C-alpha cells in the first residue's frame, strides 16, 4: 500500500532533482564565467538557491509551529519537524558550500561574513530543536517544546543577521554586491524552483515518516471493558467457590 503523500513526496523530489540537473548543467557548462569570480562563480548556482531554500523552509517550520501550538494536532507537529529537518540539512550544506566558496574568494575557509555566520547560528539553533525532540518522550510536551523552540529560533534569524552585519561593517567594508547578468539569472531561477520542489517533496516524505512514527507510538489501544459490579456479599464470610 502506497499512500498519496508517499507518491506526491517522491514525485516532487524526482521533479526537483531533474530540474536541478538542468539548472546545474546550464550553470556549469553553458553560463559564462562570472566577471570577478571566474569559474568559482559557478558555485552560486547551487549556493544561492540552497540559501533561499533554507530560509523558506525555516519560515515554513515557523508557520507550522504556530499551527501546532494553536491546534495541538500531531499533523502540524510532524510538519514542523519535517521542515526544521529539511531546513537544517540545507543550512549545513550552505555552511559547507559557503566555506568552499570563501576559500578561493577570500583566501580562507571561514570568515565572519554575516550570511555565513548567520547560517552557522541557525544550523545550531534549529539543529538543537531536533535534538530536544528526541529527548522528550511525552507526545504533548514534545510537540509543545518543538513548536516553541522553533518559533523562538526563527525570530532570531533577522536579529542574528543584522547584528553580525553591524558587527562586521565596523571592521571591514561589506563585500560589494555582485551584479547578476541575465544569462546567469536563468540557471539560478531554475535551480531555485528545483530546490523549492525538492524541499517540498522531501518535507512531505519526512512529514509522513514522522506522522507514522507518532501514530505508532500513540496508537490507541481499545479502552478496557467496563468492570463488573463487585459483589460484597461474601466479603464478611468465607470466600465462595
Amino acid at each position, binding site marked *: 500500500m502506497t499512500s498519496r503523500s508517499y507518491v506526491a513526496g517522491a514525485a516532487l523530489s524526482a521533479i526537483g532533482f531533474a530540474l536541478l540537473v538542468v539548472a546545474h548543467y546550464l550553470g556549469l557548462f553553458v553560463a559564462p564565467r562570472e566577471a570577478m569570480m571566474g569559474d568559482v562563480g559557478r558555485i552560486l548556482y547551487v549556493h544561492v538557491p540552497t540559501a533561499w531554500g533554507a530560509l523558506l523552509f525555516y519560515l515554513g517550520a515557523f508557520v507550522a509551529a504556530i499551527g501546532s501550538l494553536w491546534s495541538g494536532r500531531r499533523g502540524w507537529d510532524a510538519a514542523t519537524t519535517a521542515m526544521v529537518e529539511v531546513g537544517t540539512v540545507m543550512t549545513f550544506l550552505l555552511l559547507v558550500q559557503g566555506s568552499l566558496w570563501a576559500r578561493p574568494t577570500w583566501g580562507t575557509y571561514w570568515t565572519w561574513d554575516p550570511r555565513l555566520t548567520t547560517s552557522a547560528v541557525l544550523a545550531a539553533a534549529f539543529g538543537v530543536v531536533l535534538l530536544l525532540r528526541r529527548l522528550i*518522550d*511525552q*507526545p*504533548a510536551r514534545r510537540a509543545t517544546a518543538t513548536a516553541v523552540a522553533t518559533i523562538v529560533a526563527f525570530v532570531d534569524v533577522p536579529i542574528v543577521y543584522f547584528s553580525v552585519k553591524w558587527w562586521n561593517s565596523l571592521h571591514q567594508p561589506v563585500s560589494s554586491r555582485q551584479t547578476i547578468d541575465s544569462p546567469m539569472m536563468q540557471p539560478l531561477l531554475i535551480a531555485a524552483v528545483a530546490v523549492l520542489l525538492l524541499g517540498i517533496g522531501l518535507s512531505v516524505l519526512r512529514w509522513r515518516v514522522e506522522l507514522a512514527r507518532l501514530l505508532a*507510538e*500513540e*496508537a*490507541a*489501544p481499545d*479502552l*478496557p*471493558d*467496563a*468492570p*463488573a*459490579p*463487585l*459483589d*460484597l456479599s*461474601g*466479603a*464478611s464470610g468465607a*470466600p465462595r*467457590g
Partner: protein
Amino acid sequence: MSSSTPVVQARDLCRRFGRRWAVARVDLDVQPGERLLIIGANGSGKSTLLNMLATLLPITRGSLRLFGRDPVQDRAEVRRRLAIVRHAHGMYEDLSARDNLSVRASLLGRRIDIPRLLEQVRLEDRGDPIRAYSAGMRKRLQLAMLQFEAPDLAMLDEPFSALDPAGCADVEGMIRALPGAVIIVSHQVERAGKLCDRAILMEQGLMRWSGPASQAWEAWRAVQRDDVRTGGGPAGATAAGGAP
C-alpha cells in the same frame, strides 16, 4: 453560585500515557462538603485521577467539570477554589516553614497569621529550611497551608504515608477540620474510611466499586479475592461477574 452545584462532575474520564490507559471510563460526582475516599492497588490510576481532578494533568477523553465550570476555559477560577496535597509537597526546600507560609500567602494575595498557624502545627520554633524536616513535620506544614487556603475542594494523595501514629492523629484532625469537599487517596483504608462518607475503588484504571466508605474495607477484600479467583485483570473480572 448555587451551593448545590456538584464540586466534581466527571463523565467517561480517561487518560492515556503512551499506549496505556491509566484511567478509563470514570464517572464521578462529588457534592459540596462531601468526603470521598479513593482506594486501589498501586498503579490502579488513583493518583492520575487525582491529578486530573486537580487540573494538573490534561484529560485524554471524556468530560470534566469542576464547580460547574470547564477546567480549561475557566482555569484560573477553578484553580482558585481547589488545592492538592501530594507527596511532592510543593514547597521550597531552602525556605523555613515561616518563609514558605509567607511566600504562599503573598502568591495567594492574602494575609495570614503566620505565628498562630505555626503554633497550631507545632512548628513555631523551627527557623531552619524544611530540607531538614521530618515527613510528619512536612505533612503538618502542608496541611496548615491547606487549612489556611480553605479550598472548596481539597485533594490529598496518601496523607498518612510515612507518618507515625501521633502524626496520623494530627493529620486526621486537620482533615476533619477542612471546610469544603475532600478527596483522599489512601492505602490506609480503615483510617481514611472513617474520615469519609463515600468511597470508590480503582482497579487497573477502572472504577470497580463505589459505595459508602464504611464498606470500603470489604470492597477492598472482595476485589483481592476476586483477583485471586480469576487470575486478576478486568477481563477475568467481567467473566466472573457475569455468573452470580
